[in-house]
Structures are given as structure tokens and as C-alpha cells.
């Protein structure tokens, strides 16, 4: 049988991917340009016995997602910049309570209401540092409708595997663009479920580090009684202010990500082997960058593209290596310079790092990137 193929928006692909990954709960609040994710979920979820609820605001949506996730289901919410800002306190809650869930942010411009129908890439630091306190973050940045499908599935897998919130960020251009999407067959993409405890209920500790960096998570209603809180806590889930316990928990929750960067990191490199100038770009901007690389190569300029699919944790090793190899890195992004700080941080002055930015609601076009490359050479 031929594979199901459809001409759909990135936002729609995201919703179908969530269903593919086994998502059974969506809690949301409408905001452009993310709304189609909710709309498709409201159609598809009940068909598979899942639940869709439009909550009274984004905070409630995030709360419902965490509550649902604790009963053992895979849960999703989708929003855009201002909505993510509202969710931040509870994203932190999902971090400390180690609750798997996926947050999609279809990025618009900003700050504030900004340009609801215009694209932006200005929430990339919000995805890293938006909530308060120290915590790990995983954020993925797909650049095409097909990739939104595969990366959304990957986001659920990472959320379940590392017991934490995972964000998928795409800009309005990819969210609203229609492309041919091939639906993978069941089993074609890996789908991971969280590890359930194998100890008797009386012995279960939801944050027991002796069970590994990512302790198994029981579901409410499955026979395990346990306590979940946003307070710093000990292995049994109950609040503690004992310095050594708090310190160990905080560090474990970060190292469970930093010690597994190789499993989480995913990048694409195009003609970087001999590149003298590397364009560092993600999302729809990377599509323009790829075009620019081809054009520059035609005129004899050794340009290459580094495109992270995992933005957080930051792709430090490859970025540092490329900085040593290249004369310059051009960071292209639809904001006034956010990821460039990270690139500069790991380049440590090994090469010239320059930015090509845009915040007027127009995409960064290949010509702009080409001009910048020629300027720095």
C-alpha cells in the first residue's frame, strides 16, 4: 500500500506527528500563528480516544498538560511567544517535577503582541532561560513540514526518555507553509515511552537517583501513591531544605541532559568540509542559507551551512570545531542577535563571528546572506 502523502501546513504536520507519537492529551489556548495545531488536535484526538481541552488561558493549558502527563499519558500544548511567556512558571514546574510533556512554540515577532502573523526566531533564549531557576532545556528547531513531523515525534521521545518538558520551536514561515509530507508507517519512526517502575508500590520513590539519572515515573491511578511538588525535594518527592539533598537533585536534573548531549544533539552540515565561511542558521532561515551556499559556491566562494536541529542543549562541539576551521561564521536569525551569543561563547575568538539579523516580519533572503559573506571574507 502506498504511503499516505499530503500537502499540509507545518502546524498540521505537527499535530499529526503528535498523534503518531502516541499523544493522548492536548491542553491549549488559541494564539496565532500556532492555532492550527490545536484545531487539528481537536479533530484527531477524540478519534483515538484522546482528550482535547481548550483551557481558559495558557497557564491553565500548561497546568492541564502536566496534570494529564502525571496520569501516564503523553501530553502536548502549542502556543506562540506571549503564550510561552505565560507558561514559563509551569515549564519550570515540569522541569523540577520531571514531568514529560511537549510544548510547541510557533514563533512570531515581538516582544509582547508583536506581529501575530509575521515570523520570528526571537524566542530561542526564552526556550533556554525563560523559566526561573537553574534547569536543563531541550529545544528542537525543524525547518520543513516533513521535519516538523519527525522532530515532533523526536520531541515526545526525548520528553519521555529524559522525563522533562521539551520545546519544539518553529517560525511562522514553516508553521504556515504547505509542503508535501509523507506520513511514516507505524513503526517506521521510533516511539519511546517513559520507563515505569518495577518496584512494589511501597518501595517506589519518584526521584530515586539510585535508579539512574532518569528515575522511572509511575502514573497516578496505576496503584502507586506518591507526592509531586514544585518545591525542592528529596528522592521520595517530599520537600526538603537539606543542602546536600537539594544540591544533588538540582545537579542531577541538569546532568541528565548535559551527560547525554550526544543522544540529544542533531545537526545538519552542508559543504562544511572545506568551508572558509560557515553560515550558522536554523529554521526557515537555514533554507535561505542553503540557497546562498549554492550560489556562493558557483562564484568560487567556499561557503558552508551548519544547521542545528537541536538548539538546546547548544551544539557546542561542532560549533567550536567549525570556528577553528573557518575564517568566519555568519549567524543568520530572525531576531536582533540571540544565538550569536552562544556561537561567540564557544568560538572563543577562534574566528570572526558576525550576524545577519532581521526583525521586520520578512524572511531573511539568500541575497542578504550572500552579501554578508562577501563582506566578511
Amino acid at each position: 500500500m502506498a504511503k499516505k502523502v499530503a500537502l499540509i501546513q507545518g502546524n498540521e504536520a505537527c499535530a499529526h506527528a503528535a498523534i503518531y507519537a502516541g499523544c493522548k492529551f492536548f491542553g491549549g489556548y488559541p494564539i496565532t500563528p500556532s492555532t492550527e495545531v490545536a484545531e487539528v488536535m481537536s479533530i484527531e484526538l477524540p478519534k483515538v480516544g484522546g482528550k482535547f481541552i481548550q483551557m481558559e488561558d495558557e497557564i491553565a493549558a500548561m497546568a492541564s498538560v502536566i496534570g494529564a502527563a502525571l496520569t501516564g499519558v503523553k501530553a502536548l500544548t502549542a502556543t506562540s511567544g506571549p503564550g510561552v511567556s505565560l507558561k514559563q512558571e509551569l515549564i519550570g514546574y515540569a522541569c523540577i517535577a520531571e514531568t514529560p510533556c511537549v510544548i510547541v512554540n510557533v514563533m512570531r515577532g515581538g516582544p509582547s503582541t508583536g506581529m501575530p502573523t509575521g515570523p520570528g526566531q526571537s524566542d530561542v533564549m526564552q526556550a533556554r532561560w525563560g523559566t526561573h531557576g537553574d534547569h536543563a532545556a531541550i529545544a528542537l528547531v525543524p525547518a520543513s513540514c516533513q521535519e516538523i513531523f519527525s522532530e515532533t515525534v523526536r520531541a515526545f521521545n526525548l520528553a519521555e526518555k529524559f522525563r522533562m518538558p521539551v520545546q519544539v520551536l518553529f517560525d511562522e514561515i514553516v508553521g504556515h507553509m504547505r509542503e508535501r509530507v509523507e506520513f511514516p508507517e507505524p513503526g517506521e519512526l521510533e516511539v519511546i515511552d517513559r520507563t515505569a517502575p518495577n518496584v512494589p508500590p511501597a518501595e517506589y520513590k519518584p526521584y530515586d537517583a539510585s535508579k539512574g539519572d532518569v528515575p522511572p515515573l509511575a502514573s497516578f491511578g496505576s496503584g502507586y501513591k506518591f507526592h509531586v511538588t514544585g518545591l525542592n525535594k528529596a528522592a521520595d518527592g517530599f520537600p526538603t531544605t537539606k543542602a546536600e539533598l537539594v544540591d544533588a537533585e538540582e545537579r542531577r536534573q541538569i546532568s541528565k541532559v548535559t551527560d547525554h548531549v550526544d543522544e540529544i544533539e542533531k545537526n545538519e552540515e552542508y559543504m562544511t568540509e572545506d568551508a572558509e565561511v560557515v553560515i550558522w542558521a536554523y529554521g526557515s532561515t537555514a533554507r535561505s542559507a542553503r540557497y546562498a551556499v549554492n550560489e556562493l559556491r558557483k562564484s568560487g566562494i567556499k561557503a558552508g551551512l551548519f544547521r542545528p536541529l537541536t538548539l538546546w542543549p547548544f551544539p557546542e562541539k561542532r560549533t567550536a570545531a567549525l570556528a577553528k576551521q573557518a575564517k568566519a561564521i555568519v549567524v543568520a536569525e530572525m531576531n536582533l542577535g540571540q544565538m550569536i551569543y552562544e556561537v561567540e561563547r564557544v568560538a572563543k575568538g577562534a574566528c570572526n563571528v558576525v550576524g545577519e539579523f532581521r526583525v521586520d516580519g520578512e524572511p531573511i533572503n539568500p541575497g542578504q546572506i550572500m552579501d554578508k559573506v562577501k563582506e566578511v571574507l
Partner: protein
Amino acid sequence: MAYDYEKSIRPGKLPHIWCPGCGHGIVMKGLIRAMDSCNLDREKTSIVSGIGCASRLPGYMDACTLHTAHGRAAAFATGVKMANPDMTVIVCGGDGDGTAIGGNHFIHACRRNIDMTYVIMNNYIYGMTGGQFSPCTPTGHKASTTPYGNPDPIFDISKLAIGSGATFVARTTAFHATQIDKLIAEGIKHKGMAVIEVLDDCPTTYGRRNKFRSVVDMMKRLKEVAVPVQAAAKMTAEQLEGKVLTGVLYKEDKPEYCEMYQKVIERAQGSAS
């Protein structure tokens, strides 16, 4: 024989954090008796709270407990109940948590008529943060942030719940300890959103500032203001001045949210008749 509360409390979790004289412990005992009288399976019971002194209650209870963020308990609880309608969901927390920061979630949980029991401990003040005024602090009274007397009008929590669509609403006080469990039990058995408001006392941050010389004074006041709805029906407006009605204030049978959503699933799957 004395009632055995300990069997419902998590081993090793006492003493609790509440101050001497605080009514929150009376409400917890009422909740334990209510859960017992309803024969709740604790593995299938989720007790959800926000942040505040009252919201610390779930930590002591032997069940699936969820201590969330300030004000968000009803929204977390909605996710729990929707995702697993087999669970009994009980929400508890303070007046500030439920009607200030969480006011929006509270009214929408009432509106949906989702099957949960919300026990709201109204001690007229923000206890945990040291006695700032809440939407339930009586006008004119003192709090740490209303040193000249509170200019704000109050929320009547029970009226708010009725107006928002809750289908079971009851009120009692920490003084009327034996009524607490009966009303909570009735709320648990009710299919739909049940709100039980318990007028409570905070001697440390409210009483002290408002010239209640002792906990006994505060309890006496709770006893005096409470008028059972049945008795109130025979009283004049003058007699009811400054009184608060207690007992079951409202009860109605209406479709419950998770059941409504089940119909959505049936329609989507094409099996609705």
C-alpha cells in the same frame, strides 16, 4: 474509640507546618473522615493543591498527591481528571490561592462542571506570605498590606462558585468540625463540580492584627456568624445582617464535563447513535 486519623496520613510526615490554633488541621481531619466514609481507594484518589499554608495539606495525605504552583490547582486537577476520569479528584487550598491568582481557573472549573471536589479554606488572609490581604479579607480589616484598613470589597466564594456554574456548593466553618466531613463527603459523591467553603481562622497573621485576643475568640466568632440555611429561611434581613449561611447552599444535576467529552469521542469515532 477514638477515630484513627494516622492510617490516612503518610508515615513520618508529621508534625505539619501549621501554627498552633490554625484551622487547616481541622479541615484535614474532616477530609480524612470524608474520604473514609466514601470508601475512597487512595491509589485512585488525587489530592491537588496550589501554594499556601492550606495548600500544604496534600503532602500529609496518603494518596496520589500533587502540590502545584500558586493558584493553578484547579487547572492541574482538570488535566488529571480529563486524562483519567476513573480517578477521584479533590482540590484543596486557600482563599488567596483559589480566588485571587487562581480565580480564573476556579470559575472555569465550576463552569465546566468537571467532577471534582474543591475544598477551599477561607481564613480571610494570605497566611504563608505573612498576612497580606486577600480577596476575602473583610473591608476595613487590617492586613500587613492594608495598615490603614482594607479598602477592597470581598468575594463571597460560595456565591462566586454558584454563579460560575458549580453544581454543588456548601459552606461551613472550622468551628463546626463535624459538619466538614459530611459536606465534603456529599461533595465527593456529587457528580460534577463541588465546592466546599470552610471559614477558617488564622490566629498568627489575621487574628493578631484584628484584635482577636485568642484562638478561642476567633472560633467563637465563626460559631456566631454561621447560620444554617434552614434557620436563615425563617430570619429577617435585619437578623441576618453580618451572618454567613452554612450548609448545602446549592445543588443541581447537570451533565458532567468528562461525560460530555466521552460523547465527543463517540461522535468522532462514529459510534454515536
